[in-house]
């Protein structure tokens, strides 16, 4: 689960990770008030959307006083922010973070991620703050220092010292740097994060070390034990159809094509998308209705897919294992009748009771195109689109 920068910083604050003073605002007036409370001096106004590259897109601006903060906030709230992560359509800005300006000496990088090869967390730091870490890794990998963490004992002080020395920190900056890194690890574990990226991590002229930006993602599997974090979910940041699908416990991701697909199982769903593309079509979505694929989930799947006006045909690919294909077929017929579908429907049911299923589909009076193999299904879709 993604959360906003300001929410991430609120979490960090709780775990004594230093962050600049500041607060979220939903209107220019609020921005002005916050700027006043911060002392009336220079503040930074930052658009809060779930995407990176906000500065380059014009979503982060400096304001010298509260009045200017109000002006800048007027420009940012309501703007359609386009960054390399939002796609060309951009994202509407509804919230901003107003933060105190800092006297920055150096910009560094600190991040904790899962190293899937070692199945361990790795703490990464770099002197190249502000740059995307993937770019640093590709262009100057020697600038990234890594410390792997043994989950049995956690991140140790000697490891924090090692990377803090590696960053060239000395004196107060060093002491504060070590404290920062230790606290960041504590926060990561306490909230079941799946990513914590502080870019940049800044060192001020008076020796402070703070998180100027914070990207914290939370492990979806662990949300059951973090009710407070679940409440941070911002539905405005999600695709409306995906929000709708999540209400039915369906795994749906909207894509740009015109062939909707309903599949049981995530791997088979991806493979079905791939096959549509190989046959010359473009998938409109990823939709996994789960290994079971009951009549109800299929009907809900239909509703979601038909909510996307670009969909011109639907491909249903169900591999019946424990779930019987004749049951799925009955569900599909029922759902199609209930909803009244006017676009071509291509159905491929394989596995348990597949033959009984095709009889049900053929006798339904509805215009299903029944395919026997995986490949035939994709070809039928493309033929249907051509007609």
């Amino acid at each position, binding site marked *: 689960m993604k959360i906003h920068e300001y929410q991430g910083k609120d979490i960090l604050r709780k775990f004594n990770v230093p962050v600049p003073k500041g607060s979220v605002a939903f209107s220019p007036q609020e921005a002005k008030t916050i700027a006043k409370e911060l002392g009336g001096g220079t503040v930074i106004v930052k658009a809060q959307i779930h995407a990176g590259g906000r500065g380059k897109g014009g979503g982060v601006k400096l304001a010298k006083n509260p009045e200017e903060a109000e002006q800048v906030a007027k420009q940012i709230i309501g703007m359609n922010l386009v960054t390399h*992560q939002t796609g060309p359509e951009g994202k509407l800005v509804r919230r901003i973070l107003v933060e105190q300006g800092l006297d920055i000496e150096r910009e560094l990088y600190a991040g904790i991620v*899962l190293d*899937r*090869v070692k*199945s*361990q*967390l790795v703490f990464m730091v770099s002197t190249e703050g502000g740059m995307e*870490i*993937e770019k640093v890794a590709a262009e100057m990998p020697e600038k990234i220092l890594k410390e792997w963490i*043994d*989950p*049995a004992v956690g991140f140790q002080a000697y490891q924090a010292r090692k990377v803090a020395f590696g960053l060239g920190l000395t004196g107060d900056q060093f002491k504060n740097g070590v404290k920062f890194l230790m606290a960041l690890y504590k926060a990561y*574990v306490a909230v*079941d994060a*799946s990513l914590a990226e502080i870019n940049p991590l800044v060192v001020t002229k008076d020796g402070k070390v703070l998180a100027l930006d914070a990207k914290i993602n939370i*492990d*979806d*599997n*662990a949300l*059951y*034990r973090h009710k407070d974090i679940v409440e941070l979910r911002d539905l405005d940041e999600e695709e409306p159809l995906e929000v709708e699908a999540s209400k039915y416990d369906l*795994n749906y*991701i909207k*894509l740009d094509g015109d062939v909707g697909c309903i*599949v*049981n*199982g*995530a*791997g*088979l*769903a*991806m*493979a*079905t*998308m*791939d*096959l*549509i*593309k*190989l046959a010359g079509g473009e*998938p409109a979505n*990823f939709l*996994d209705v789960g*290994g079971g694929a009951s009549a109800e989930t299929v009907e809900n799947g239909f509703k979601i897919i038909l909510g996307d006006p670009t969909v011109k045909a639907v491909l249903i690919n169900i*591999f*019946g*294992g*424990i779930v019987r294909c004749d049951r799925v077929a009955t569900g599909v017929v029922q759902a199609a009748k209930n909803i009244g579908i006017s676009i071509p429907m291509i159905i491929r049911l*394989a*596995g*348990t009771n597949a033959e009984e299923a095709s009889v049900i589909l053929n006798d339904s009076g509805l215009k299903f195109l029944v395919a026997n*193999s*995986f*490949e035939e299904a*994709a070809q039928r879709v493309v033929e249907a689109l051509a007609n």
Partner: protein
Amino acid sequence: MSILIDKNTRLVVQGITGGEGSFHTRQMIEYGTNVVAGVTPGKGGQKFDDKVPVYNTVADAVEKEGANAAIIFVPPAFAADAILESAGNNLGVVVCIAEGIPTLDMMKIYQYLKNRSTRLVGPNCPGVISPGKAKVGIMPGFIHKQGSVGVVSRSGTLTYEAVHQLTELGIGQTTCIGIGGDPIIGTNFVDALSLYEKDPETKAVVMIGEIGGSAEEEAGLFVKENMSKPVISFIAGQTAPPGRRMGHAGAIIAGGKGTAAEKMSVLRECGVHVCESPAEIGATVAKVLK
């Protein structure tokens, strides 16, 4: 022969009295799996379907019934504990069907298992089947056929699809393993491939990967350096957008890494037979075996 499970497997089902656990226990018994015990804390002393004894602990199931393998059907919040219970009792193979285990919990389990004899398969997987011998999982048994091809996959229903294609062409399987769709799993592709390489009956291996992580790339290097048997592969998610989790917790293209194209190219360089289309898996195996 086969790998991981066979006629000597003595299975204990953790969570045998739950909905999923009881359903699949019946299916496994029907397939011929030797289910010797079930475990549900607090329900010890009962008999499941009047024949399988239920115990309070895995320790009891091992002591009284000689269980040597476990399958786990418990809610996510209890799954980590269930894995540790079976591993703590030194069962040889533990298959965790349960999905939704927090990554930080799995990380601890992974480190713990490093120094033990237990092989964990999963979590978030369909399990393992050695056709004609034993089924420790939730896959439909009837689509399988005993034979000489190993199948290893991160997916569930896509594996059934591949197995179905093989069986339709008359190509049987030694053992099929669903290793699971999570970022941290007990048995990875390299582990499975090295077991297949040592198994005299396995003549070729089908490896079904997907976007996210670099397990397929590592498997490719392993094939190049250590395998004498042909490996046929399909990677799901050629059309998956970056930054989105495609159903499985581990299926995500992060920071431009973990794309299907990258994996397919590394696998090809390592001498793996890569299928462009998921519909060609069976036919490609048939061609390679000729």
